[in-house]
């Protein structure tokens, strides 16, 4: 199902019961300056699949997410979201590098929650969540307020609608951020170490929300995390990243309990011995 | 432009005057800045109050008024200063007051922990100042210092109003002689601009030397400048 290929060699398409993957990366390479962060990644994401990504910092975990949502452009390789190429478009019969407008349309299917929340500080929680509803879905005031309030209720913050981020705890802010990214009903949701910046006692409330999303929605989820128990709980599949490559890929029972790769073993031992 | 040509040497002879005033005033400004900053940080209340008063006075009123005051009023108090001296004094103290804020914030930014550690190691006070405080403080002050130097260069144009024959003074005189304002003032502006670029470049070289002396490697210093790469992403700017 997953493999790493050498740069330039086209892999055989991943066949899984003839179902097209919801998202796919082929031969993706990304460097920052002289540092190669991703070294020829192939990755398939199926509908309703929950994938957890673990690995040491600098291994490329966050970069994968940023590429999936189009925050960054790969140096080489292809990214396909819901059947459309992210960075290539068909114009008049030929395939050309895509512009921003095309990328914007394709990335609509993807949502992301950040490690540092990135809420708009000058807006209330309600206004934060309303923002994409008003600007992208073009709904009117009443409708957008109702939807936003409902989303905030789902993450347990209906009593904090009119609070600004500065008046909220880290855990509350992150839950607002989750509600906000749910507003556009994405098919794929990306979580970039969403609890790493939180005080330990606030981690639980956020993980609870993510777990609920995993059980209650049809979204595909890609979760980059250090919370191993949590990953074991919600993931269908765990990927271990190291030095820009995927070194292990399999169900949580295998990767987390009895990993094949020594690097994975080493990493898990270090992280669980804290 | 043709009319200006014979007067060009006369105009350009203002350059050394301008540079002289700039150099003298900057020296005074730096000395004053340190003195005032240390005064405001002093545990001795009268020093704090005195330095504070000087700084707020010079920063709170117009520099031109201060210049006129030194030029027209001081003689009545029996203090007859030659125009150049009065000008350098006012410019130096004025710019020094502004720069003292930079020095003060740089000095207070030294983590007290480091000073306490130095004291605990029984390092002598002079050593503490020169080997611990100064190497951390000077590099931080260099960019604002560059601004001050160029600012002083522009500042010196005011001395033309108290009869010092700098570039601006000569420009004015030549203008009234030949009546061609555009040419005269354009050239004057370009000369100032050229001087500003040269002085700015000079300070940047000094900045690099200071960074080397302070033990900051070139990469770190350049990193601080390169970090000025814009946070504004390309997608938000370049046309679709």
């Amino acid at each position, binding site marked *: 199902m997953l493999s790493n290929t050498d740069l330039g060699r086209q892999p055989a398409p991943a066949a899984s019961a003839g179902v097209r993957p919801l998202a796919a990366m082929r031969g993706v390479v990304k460097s920052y300056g002289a540092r190669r962060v991703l070294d020829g990644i192939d990755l398939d994401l199926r509908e309703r699949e929950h994938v957890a990504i673990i690995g040491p910092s600098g291994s490329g975990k966050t970069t994968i997410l940023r590429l999936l949502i189009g925050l960054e452009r790969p140096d080489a390789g292809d990214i396909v979201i819901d059947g459309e190429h992210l960075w290539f478009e068909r114009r008049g019969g030929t395939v050309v590098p895509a512009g921003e407008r095309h990328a914007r349309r394709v990335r609509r299917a993807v949502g992301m929650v950040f490690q540092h929340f990135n809420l708009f500080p000058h807006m209330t929680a309600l206004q934060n969540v309303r923002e994409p509803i008003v600007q992208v879905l073009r709904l009117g005031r009443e409708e957008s307020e109702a939807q936003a309030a409902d989303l905030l209720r789902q993450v347990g913050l209906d009593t904090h609608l009119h609070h600004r981020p500065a008046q909220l705890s880290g855990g509350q802010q992150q839950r607002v951020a989750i509600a906000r990214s749910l507003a556009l009903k994405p098919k794929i949701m990306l979580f970039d170490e969403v609890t790493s910046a939180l005080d330990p006692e606030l981690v639980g409330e956020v993980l609870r929300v993510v777990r609920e999303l995993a059980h209650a929605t049809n979204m595909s989820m890609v979760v980059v995390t250090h919370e191993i128990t949590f990953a074991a709980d919600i993931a269908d599949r765990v990927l271990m990243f190291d030095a820009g490559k995927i070194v292990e890929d399999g169900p949580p029972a295998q990767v987390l309990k009895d990993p094949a790769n020594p690097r994975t073993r080493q990493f898990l031992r270090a992280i669980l011995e804290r | 432009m043709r009319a200006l040509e014979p007067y060009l040497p006369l105009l350009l002879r203002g350059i050394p005057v301008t540079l002289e005033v700039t150099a003298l005033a900057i020296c005074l400004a730096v000395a004053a800045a340190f003195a005032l900053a240390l005064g405001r940080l002093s545990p001795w209340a009268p020093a704090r109050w005195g330095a504070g008063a000087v700084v707020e006075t010079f*920063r709170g*009123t*117009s520099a031109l*008024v201060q210049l006129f005051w030194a030029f027209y009023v001081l003689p009545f108090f029996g203090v007859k200063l030659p125009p150049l001296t009065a000008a350098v004094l006012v410019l130096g103290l004025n710019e020094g007051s502004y720069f003292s804020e930079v020095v003060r914030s740089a000095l207070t930014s030294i983590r007290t922990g480091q000073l306490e550690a130095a004291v605990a190691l029984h390092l002598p006070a002079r050593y503490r100042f020169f080997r611990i405080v100064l190497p951390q403080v000077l590099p931080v002050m260099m960019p604002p210092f560059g601004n001050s130097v160029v600012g002083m260069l522009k500042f010196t*144009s005011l001395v033309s109003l108290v009869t010092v024959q700098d570039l601006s003074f000569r420009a004015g005189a030549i203008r009234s002689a030949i009546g061609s304002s555009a040419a005269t003032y354009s050239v004057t*502006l370009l000369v100032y601009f050229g001087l500003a670029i040269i002085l700015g470049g000079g300070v940047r070289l000094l900045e690099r030397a200071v960074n080397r002396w302070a033990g900051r490697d070139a990469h770190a210093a350049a990193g601080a400048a390169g970090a000025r790469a814009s946070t504004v992403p390309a997608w938000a700017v370049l046309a679709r």
Partner: protein
Amino acid sequence: MTGLRWDWATAWAVLPDLLRGLSLTVEATVAGSIIALFLGLCWTIVRVGRIPVVSPAVQLLVEFLRGTPFLVQLYFLFYVLPTYGLTLPALQTGALGLGLYYSAYTSEVFRAGIEAVPAGQWESCLTLGLPLWRVWAGIVLPQAMRIAVPMLGNYVIVMFKETALLSTITVMELTAQATNAGFRTFRFVEPLTLVGLLYFLLSYPAARLVHALEHRGAVQH
């Protein structure tokens, strides 16, 4: 023997003239500030917009305005504009010069404000698919302004003091009134000291206010 004595009679006599000059000073400050803020924002939009040819040109203009003396720029405008058929009253020329010179500084402040908006804000705007105009108008600029306003306030205060230079182009503002009175009465102590005091009494409280604003803004972030 005019000396260290302070002559209250002279002081009271020149005060009306000084206050008349003050009103011109304030006028010039207000007009200059409006021009400086407007132009500064224009320069910044062009500079940040990375428009080919225009952006570097504006960048050079801003460097030029910042790198040459205000006094000489004033002279240039005052003497050169009429030769191109644009004869403005001295006060307006002065306000224009003030606004032009300080637009170079306000542009820097606006740019710093925009650059200070955290990268994460841009990133969430992109991931939420917000339209570009909204990213600027609703998300980035409001945050940028919060940071920029105190610094802009400082420059307004600076402009207030720099209006003194307008005296060199025949504007009878505060400083001009003082030197004028001095030449008239041969007593410079009273007019110049009063003028110094007036500048101080108006600019110092304003500076403290702006300083307090800066602190409040910093705390909220």
